[in-house]
């Protein structure tokens, strides 16, 4: 941090122009994942069964649907940033760009499927 102009040091953005934002968001979602995954594991373990009727009835309640939505957003954002770091560390040629694009397609596609499914169950009881 010793080089550069004074205003540059104050901004702290560095050559990537985004500063420590990615790093900080990764730690922030680690914390929210910690809480949400504990909630998820305890809830799943305490459900009387995991059959269709029980799971649908559970996911229809606001106190299950909302944490479940937050969990998907938090976990998916966290592993998008984690896998992005892994790709940037190990892929050095043009395949890096391809891998990053595929990662984003994967995360957004899977996330959309999960969010839509949770909302459908919550609002309509999962009826096909």
């Amino acid at each position: 941090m010793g080089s550069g102009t004074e205003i540059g040091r104050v901004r702290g953005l560095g050559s990537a122009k985004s500063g420590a934002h990615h790093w900080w968001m990764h730690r922030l979602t680690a914390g929210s994942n910690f809480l949400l995954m504990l909630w998820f594991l305890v809830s799943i373990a305490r459900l009387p069964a995991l059959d269709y009727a029980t799971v649908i009835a559970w996911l229809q309640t606001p106190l299950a649907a909302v944490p479940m939505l937050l969990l998907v957003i938090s976990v998916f954002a966290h592993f998008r940033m984690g896998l992005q770091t892994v790709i940037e560390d190990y892929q050095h040629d043009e395949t890096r760009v391809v891998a990053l694009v595929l990662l984003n397609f994967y995360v957004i596609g899977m996330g959309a499927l999960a969010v839509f499914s949770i909302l459908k169950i919550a609002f309509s009881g999962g009826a096909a």
Partner: protein
Amino acid sequence: MAVSILHRATGAAMATAGAILLVWWLVAAASGADAYRGFLDLLTTADGSLNVVGYILGIGLSFTFFQHMGSGVRHLVMDVGANFELKSNKRSAQLTWLWSVCATILFWVYLLVVKG
């Protein structure tokens, strides 16, 4: 060293196998009773208990999760600049194993023995 690279391996395993299983479960539940039965058939036997695939994925992913959680907390401590002394650093790496093994056993004892 091993625990550090394992943090990436466990993370990548959950981002692929774990995420696919979670989304599959949610999509199946939102697609109706027949689709949900198809999802359960993948993991359970006819009487409702877990089959071999169910046990491998269930125990494997829960252990993977607890190990990632343990090494993740260890990294959060190192992020604030602490725990870089060789001895305590090594001990905390070993503690992540103790934690993940114990947490996985306790989780499954609760599911299979306490709950029945």
